[in-house]
């Protein structure tokens, strides 16, 4: 474990990471953050001299998928060392401490690093009744308000924390809200996804370590470097869309030939994330490459945007009964207006005859 007074460079050298390996990581990080090659030296210098910042990770209404994704995908690469290089002072799932001892550690870290620590949150926060989700008797809401008030910035990891996610899906029984609905006075970085791409989380933290600032964000508060382009624009199946070659089912000839999955409900055209470029499982693949359409998990309310297998261009028409009702009302009005017109005509003829 890295000592608090130790720089990252010193720690990495101790761990046997070569200068070449470190610079390779810096290049990848600079590339991930959409920085020019000239910035690699700056990234390397900043990372090498960075002292590990305190990170407090709070988990609320979530499934632990974000943590699972992060921890399983990266060990034992150099990115995981970056995680060793932060002082992860509180994380329900990963910490050894439990109960009041764990809470005491969180409070101590908050006091010791007031105004300087990074607060990472995964999971949404129930506001319908605070007691729906509590930790050590403290409601998620109160814990977030308290921890955020003393943080430097908040990173909302996963779609639940960023936009409410699955807990907020209709009918939202717990009154779940996102972090940004509660925290208004701190910088918030939304790293959405269900789960988010691990390298994106480490990339955001690397940006903190390098520049001491939050990265450029898009309109939804997500790092523009990772969420600036939609999946469709970067999808290797895009040429098939352009040619109008679509898989009709998951086991037809089109599917076997790797044609576009638009007809099978792929949400790639309306989903902004780096899946098609960074990919998952150490760059192995991503859902579309595995033969399944994108479900749009990094977008707000993705759970309530119609079925996962409904194409984007399919309309949500409402009920057939309502349409029949509109037709019946139209027919009644049609008959009524025809009768009225005939009556007026009859009256006019009668008046003329008089």
């Amino acid at each position, binding site marked *: 474990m890295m000592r608090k007074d130790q720089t990252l460079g010193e720690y990495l050298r101790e761990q046997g990471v070569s200068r070449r390996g470190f610079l390779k990581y810096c290049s990848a990080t600079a590339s991930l953050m959409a920085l020019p090659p000239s910035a690699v030296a700056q990234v390397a210098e900043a990372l090498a001299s960075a002292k590990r910042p305190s990170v407090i990770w709070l988990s609320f209404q979530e499934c632990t998928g974000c943590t699972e994704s992060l921890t399983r995908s990266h060990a034992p690469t150099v990115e995981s060392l970056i995680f060793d290089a932060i002082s992860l002072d509180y994380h329900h799932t990963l910490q050894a401490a439990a109960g009041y001892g764990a809470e005491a550690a969180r409070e101590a870290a908050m006091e010791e690093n007031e105004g300087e620590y990074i607060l990472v949150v995964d999971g949404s926060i129930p506001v319908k009744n605070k007691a729906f989700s509590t930790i050590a008797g403290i409601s998620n809401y109160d814990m977030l308000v308290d921890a955020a008030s003393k943080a430097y910035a908040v990173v909302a990891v996963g779609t639940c924390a960023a936009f409410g996610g699955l807990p907020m899906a209709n009918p939202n029984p717990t009154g779940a809200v996102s972090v940004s609905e509660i925290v208004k006075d701190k910088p918030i970085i939304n790293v959405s996804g269900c789960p988010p791409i691990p390298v994106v989380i480490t990339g955001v933290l690397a940006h903190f370590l390098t520049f001491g600032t939050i990265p450029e964000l898009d309109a939804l508060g997500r790092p523009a470097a990772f969420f600036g382009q939609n999946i469709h624009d970067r999808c290797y199946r895009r040429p098939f869309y352009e040619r*109008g070659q679509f898989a009709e089912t998951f086991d037809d000839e089109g599917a076997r030939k790797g044609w576009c999955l638009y007809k099978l409900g792929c949400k790639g055209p309306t989903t902004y994330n780096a899946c098609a470029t960074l990919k998952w499982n150490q760059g192995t693949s991503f859902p579309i490459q595995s033969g399944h359409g994108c479900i749009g998990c990094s977008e*707000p*309310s993705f759970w309530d945007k119609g079925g996962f297998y409904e194409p984007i261009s*399919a*309309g*949500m*028409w409402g009920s057939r009964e309502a349409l029949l009702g509109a037709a019946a009302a*139209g027919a009644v009005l*049609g008959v009524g207006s*025809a009768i009225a017109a005939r009556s007026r005509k009859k009256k006019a003829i009668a008046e003329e005859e008089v």
Partner: protein
Amino acid sequence: MTLLDFARGPGLQWALWIFVFGVTWRIVGAMFLMAKKDLSKARRKKYVADGVRTIITRSVPARSFEKRIRFQHISGYAWHFALFISVLFFAPHILFFESLLGFGWSHLPNTIILFTAAAATAILIALLLRRATHPVQKFISNADDYISIFVVLIPLVTGILAFAHVGARYETLLAIHLLSVEAMLVWFPFGKLMHTAMTMPSRYQAGTSFGHRGIKA
């Protein structure tokens, strides 16, 4: 709710309700307004043949006017043909109809659709300019004509932009395209776009009436 969510959901539902309500009102109203039964002795009793013949004869220009209306005639047919191909045979459109009707059909390659959509747009712009500049056409045109052209032209333009991903993010372009289609659906029953539903039945009805009276037309 995002703009696209609105366009795909409540916006579409309201537009469709208004469309169905209005079209039914117009058709049922017209049917009940039809002339009383002709009590005179029928000169011919080939109502279907007469009706169909009039549909055909009214669909080609009268010889005496052919030269004068050739541009209008050819461009009108070309425009309708290009529009139908673009609307009915683009894969995402078929999926749109399938979500309502419950069945779909084969689509054409996007290259063909892009060509027909571009052709339809260009022809409609040309017809609009002609209407706005030709002395006679300008004189006989009213707001209904221009509104009807615009509510059809805008979905064509926004559809091409959405297809090409030009001008804004895809979901914004798609939402604008859907909203423009919804505007057209709302306007449809109340303006001249209603000719889509009225033209053929009224020609048929005129044909049967002509036949009854022994008129060949």
